[in-house]
């Protein structure tokens, strides 16, 4: 056996060893990471551990190639290009993962909380690796990419904090006293569903109409639709036509 062949066998053995070591370390590290990060959620911990494991395996393969003395400059160049292409093409995905890490560690809100981020507000249904799912006050499902939370201020109103809703009602009725009387009757009907007594902010007579602004306090944001329908129905029963804004 020539010295070149002898060195080649040693390099191949070392290359295999480096890959085996990387796989072994990757598996061990995966267990450690999954165990230590489980407080941030099992799914998140195992996913993060899996990423670290793959990173170590790729590192082992690169080291193996370099041990085999393939032209290292070419190899490095190719690796860098591949990494850059991957990073550019998957930048949104990575950014969303970064967003998830932020949401899991900083915990600005939990599932069930009522939040406002940018101009979007709603109750958090689920926090996922790529996005957060909300349900808006009107019942629409909204999917927000996690990176959005890195760039926008978050207001957490918590799930249990009562929300005040302001309603403007326009009555086709010019007698303020009559409107006020009917309004009180109707508000008494819906009061058991509210967190506290409703407040009439103002009653103004505008031409032949009466405009009433009132504030209702509710806990369950899903109740808004029902409340508006209930109010309209109660006024209708009393022969009063209204518009609610």
């Amino acid at each position, binding site marked *: 056996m020539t010295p070149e062949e002898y060195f080649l066998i040693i390099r191949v053995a070392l290359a295999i060893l480096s890959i085996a070591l990387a796989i072994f370390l990757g598996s061990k590290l995966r267990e450690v990471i999954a165990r230590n990060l489980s407080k941030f959620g099992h799914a998140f911990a195992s996913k993060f551990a899996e990423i670290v494991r793959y990173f170590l395996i790729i590192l082992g393969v690169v080291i193996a190639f370099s041990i085999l003395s393939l032209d290292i400059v070419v190899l490095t160049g190719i690796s860098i290009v591949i990494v850059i292409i991957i990073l550019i093409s998957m930048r949104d995905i990575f950014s969303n993962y970064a967003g998830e890490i932020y949401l899991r560690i900083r915990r600005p809100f939990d599932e069930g909380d009522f939040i406002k981020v940018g101009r979007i507000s709603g109750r958090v249904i689920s926090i996922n690796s790529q996005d957060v799912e909300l349900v808006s006050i009107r019942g629409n499902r909204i999917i927000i990419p996690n990176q959005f939370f890195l760039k926008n201020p978050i207001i957490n109103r918590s799930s249990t904090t009562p929300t005040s809703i302001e309603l403007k009602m326009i009555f086709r009725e010019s007698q303020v006293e009559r409107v006020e009387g009917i309004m009180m009757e109707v508000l008494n009907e819906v009061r058991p569903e509210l*967190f506290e007594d409703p407040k009439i902010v103002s009653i103004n007579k505008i031409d032949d109409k009466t405009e009433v602004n009132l504030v209702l306090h509710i806990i369950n944001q899903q109740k808004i639709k029902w409340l508006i329908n209930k109010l309209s129905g109660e006024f209708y029963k009393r022969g009063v036509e209204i518009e609610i804004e």
Partner: protein
Amino acid sequence: MRSVVIGGGHLAYFVVTTLREIDPKGRIIVIEFTFEKVEMLKKTFPYAEAVLSSIDKVEEYITENRSLIDVLVSATDSDALNLRYAKHSIKNEIPIVVAILNNPLNEPIFVKENIRYVINPYKTIISKVKEIVDKFRVNIIYEFSRINAGIYAFKIENAEILRKVRGLILKNDLPFFIVSSADNRIRAGSVGDIQIGDVVCISCLDKDIRSFLERIREGGS
């Protein structure tokens, strides 16, 4: 506010009367599984609606009324049922879901299932016994449900604990009051007023006190 209480036993009695006190104009619905208890509930709580339901129909009721229920308290005599209904209510986005424990050993199961508000009625036994017998190093007087904080009592047994408690208060700028050993009276004051033998009650965030509690307990055993 619309509140739904599941179960009509002795736990529910306290829940219903409290809900009534909180919101006298609110709507309270009690769901029970036996006809006799429903009849009794109607008499005991004339202001509440008592509803007869089978065990398996409760989830259906919650789903149908999910947009109207503000508070759901699961207070049956079975922790398995309480967990089941609490989980279903959270899935249905009921804003406030409370489970009341029958067996305190089941608390970790509820916590693991992300039930945020779990009431353990037996918890006060520990703090009460410690307070009555008047022999403790740390006594957890109260744990807040909505925030991760509590009120903790420390008995100043020696100079070492006095130094540690003073350090904790000064480091985190914590509000506190002193229960004096000399005359059993409560007094406010500065950390300099704390003496050996006193009980110091501190209001504090969990994160600020967790490691301190461990150190104090380890040192005391």
